[in-house]
Each structure stands twice: as structure tokens, then as C-alpha cells.
């Protein structure tokens, strides 16, 4: 997987399913254009030429989009906050903090996302009587917080060591130096990586359909159980996700290019 070039030659590897930003290679025909053209054409063909039953399916399925975006946005925010503390915990000077953050990351990495999601969802429901949406957002935040923590850790370590030294030499506390000097630079470094996580999260949010939230996938499954049109429905569901993800990945890539230009 291609690493993102970072300041000072430091590299941040984004793994764990994040889609890397799609960047054109400057030619008219590139893979992103072919794929988006295919997806849009296929969707339009189904909706306007084949029509029945696809227009019906589309209308049902797209109703799940707000929920998909809502869960994704909420969980990204949650995982950024959790990731910040995890990243700080990983690099903190206290051994106990290192261990807490480390165990959390190991734990999350070692369990399949779907299993975690179901487990946390039911645990939250049983002990905190949380339902549906908040439980799903918290569960996804906890899962993604671990990966976000790795991104923060790498981002903090990508800030040159001299920055902390200069801040300390001026009499700042470690906390002040972190807050005022290191983290603002970290944010700039990791924004593209967070964009990628957003896309990955949007896809993974489809897993919440198993826990009774009516997102895009769930609406599709409900439709199948009513009409038995499984192939047709899932084709539409897949195309809807594909179009959303392709558009977003282009946005992230464009944003990243803009930021690099403004250096």
C-alpha cells in the first residue's frame, strides 16, 4: 500500500482497510474515471431503462443514506477524540499510560470488527440501556479509536524533535508544548489520513445493519425479505456505496493536493 509522504521525509502508513485517496495520473483515462463512469452508468441504466424493480429498490435503499452518514460522522468524531488520548497514551512518559493505550490497541486489533461491534452493542444495551444510534456510534468509535490512535501517534512522532525542545527551552511545560506546538502540526499531518479513515468508516458502517439500524444495507435487506429480489437489491446497494465512496475518495485526494500546494 502506497505510503503518504510527510514532512521531513517521515512516512505514515495507513493500513487496516483505509482506502487510499484516488489520485489521477494526469491522463484522460484513469482507473478512478473508469470506475465512476461504470458505476454511474450502471445505476442510471438500471433506474431509467430497466426501471422496474430497480427504481423502487433505489428509493427504499437511499432512505438509509442519512443514517449511514450520521453514524459515520458521529463515529469519526468519537474515534478522533479516543484516538487523540490513545496516541498521547502511547507516547506518554508514564509506563502505566503506555500499557493502557497499548492493551486497548492490541485488543481492538485482535478482534474482527463485526464481532466487536455486536459485542459492544449488546454490552452497552445491557449495562447502560443505550439503544440503536448512540450505541452504534460508540461501538464504532471504540473500534476505530485504536486505529486513530496509531495515526495520532505516528503524526505526533512525525513532528521534528526540535519543536518540543524549542518549546521546552522557552519554559513551556510538556503539556503546553504538546497543546500549542506539537498537536497543531500533528493535525495538519494527519488530516489526509483522517479523510481516509472517514471513507473506510463509511464502508464499515454497513456492519451496523446487523444491529437493527436502518442504514443503506439494512434497508436493502428488509426489502429483500419482502420481495425476494436479492440479486437486484444488492446490486443497487453495492452501486450506491461505490458511488459515494468514489466521490469521497476524490474529495479527500483533492483536499490533500490543495494542502500540499499551500505549504
Amino acid at each position, binding site marked *: 500500500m502506497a505510503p503518504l509522504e510527510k514532512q521531513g521525509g517521515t512516512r505514515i502508513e495507513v493500513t487496516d482497510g483505509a482506502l487510499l485517496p484516488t489520485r489521477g495520473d494526469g491522463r484522460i483515462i484513469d482507473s478512478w474515471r473508469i470506475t465512476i463512469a461504470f458505476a454511474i452508468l450502471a445505476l442510471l441504466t438500471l433506474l431509467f431503462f430497466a426501471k422496474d424493480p430497480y427504481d423502487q429498490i433505489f428509493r427504499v435503499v437511499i432512505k438509509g443514506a442519512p443514517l449511514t452518514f450520521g453514524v459515520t460522522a458521529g463515529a469519526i468524531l468519537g474515534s478522533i477524540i479516543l484516538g487523540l488520548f490513545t496516541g498521547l497514551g502511547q507516547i506518554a512518559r508514564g509506563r502505566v499510560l503506555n500499557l493502557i493505550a497499548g492493551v486497548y490497541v492490541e485488543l481492538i486489533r485482535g478482534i474482527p470488527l463485526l464481532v466487536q461491534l455486536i459485542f459492544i452493542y449488546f454490552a452497552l444495551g445491557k449495562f447502560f440501556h443505550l439503544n440503536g444510534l448512540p450505541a452504534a456510534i460508540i461501538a464504532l468509535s471504540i473500534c476505530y479509536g485504536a486505529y486513530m490512535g496509531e495515526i495520532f501517534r505516528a503524526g505526533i512522532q512525525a513532528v521534528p524533535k526540535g519543536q518540543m525542545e*524549542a518549546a521546552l527551552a*522557552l519554559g513551556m511545560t510538556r503539556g503546553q508544548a504538546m497543546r500549542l506546538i506539537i498537536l497543531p502540526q500533528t493535525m495538519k499531518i494527519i488530516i489526509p489520513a483522517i479523510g481516509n479513515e472517514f471513507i473506510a468508516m463509511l464502508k464499515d458502517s454497513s456492519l451496523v445493519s446487523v444491529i437493527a439500524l436502518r442504514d443503506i444495507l439494512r434497508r436493502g435487506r428488509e426489502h429483500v425479505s419482502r420481495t425476494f429480489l436479492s440479486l437486484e437489491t444488492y446490486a443497487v446497494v453495492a452501486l450506491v456505496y461505490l458511488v459515494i465512496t468514489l466521490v469521497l475518495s476524490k474529495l479527500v485526494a483533492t483536499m490533500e493536493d490543495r494542502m500540499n500546494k499551500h505549504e
Partner: protein
Amino acid sequence: MSDKRIMVDIRGAEKDFGIVMALKGVDLTVYEGEVVLIIGPSGSGKSTLLRSINRLEALTGGQIFVDGDPLVGPEADIRKIREETGMVFQDFNLFPHKTALENISMAPMKVKGKTPEEAQAKARELLKRVGLEDREKSYPGQLSGGQKQRVAIARALAMEPKVMLFDEPTSALDPEMVKEVLDVMLDLAQEGMTMMVVSHEMGFARAAADRVVFMDEGEIVEIAPPDVIFDHAEEERTKKFLKHIL
């Protein structure tokens, strides 16, 4: 000199990095208003010595007093000492997300509790002093190396330090920018600032240094005024090194 106040008092300073002993018991007394130049081959412990004074490196033995305050031990107040010592780095270490003015005014506000008005007024005055009054809104990325280093000096001065530490302040600069930085340092020396400077700029040494310290392998080999050490060094090691760089 002996009737003057002692600003930095280094006593038996040791730094053991595990693989190397970077400082092997260094003694050095720097008086108020004095400019001490530190020279020596690469790896001789010059940076380690400077960085020990504001505890960017923690000593593994010995003691340092900055204006009478101990650096090591239960009474050590490291933040007070860092407030009182300004440091200028080889590669500037300006904060890239802050303008020149913010780089300078930040620590006085956050560390000394100055109001933004006070801190900015002081920062403008310092920018003027280093000849960059028209660049207050520039980000470090928009400044040349020499300009960056002058902002870095202003940033350190904004804390009103009692001692300034310079670690090879002109080594990362293109030759044509060295002078503008040395000129600022010369002014500072003439105004009576206590300065410890790691540098091999001989012109600066002769013009500004009261004493030159030659270090080798973690020890001070020889200390003498610049004219004496450059022309009549006593120690063989000093002579050999000077022949190399002169």
C-alpha cells in the same frame, strides 16, 4: 572578572549516554556579561554541554548553577532556569504554524503571563532590533535561513533571559547569510548579554569572545582569550585542531 557575578557555574558535569561518555567531568564558570565561545571536533560534547544547562539533556553526574540556582537535586526548578536561559538552535526550530510575531510573543504570554498587548509590543521591538520589523506577519516557511535564525534569536530574547546559549547558530546557513546573524549576535554581546556560543566562526570569536573553550572527547582541554588560543595555544590537541580549521 572575579568580582563579577557568576552566571553559569558548571561543576564536574558528566553525561553518560550508555554507549559514550559525552561529558567526563566538565568545570566551567561563566561570569555575567561574558561571551564564551566553545570549539572542538565533532562529537566532543559541545552540544551536550550547552543542552545540559537547560536540561534538554539530564546530567548523570555533577551540578550546574544558573545565576545561583541549582539544576540538579530536590530544589531544582527547571522551568525557572529555562525561563532564564535562551537557546538558539542550529536548525532554528521556529514554530512553522505561527507567524514571526507569534513565534516571539507566544512564550511570554503562555509562560510569563504577559498580556497579548505587552507581548506583541515587545515582539515588535525585538523584530526591529534584528532588522525584521517588516516581516512580523511572515510564516517561517516564507523566510530565508538568516531571517529565520534572527527571528529565533528574537524569540529567545523575548523571555528576557540572563544567559543566551547558541548551538552552531550559523552552521545551517548559506554563506551569504552568516554575517547578518553574526551581526545580531555581536550587538547582543556589546550590550552585555552573557553568551555561550558553540561556533567555529573565527571572526566572531576574535571580535566578541572573552574566552574560548576548546573541548575534546568530553573534556575541556584548554581555555584562553581568543588571540591567545588561536595564536599561541599551549596544548598539542588544541594546536592540532586549530590547524585543521583555520
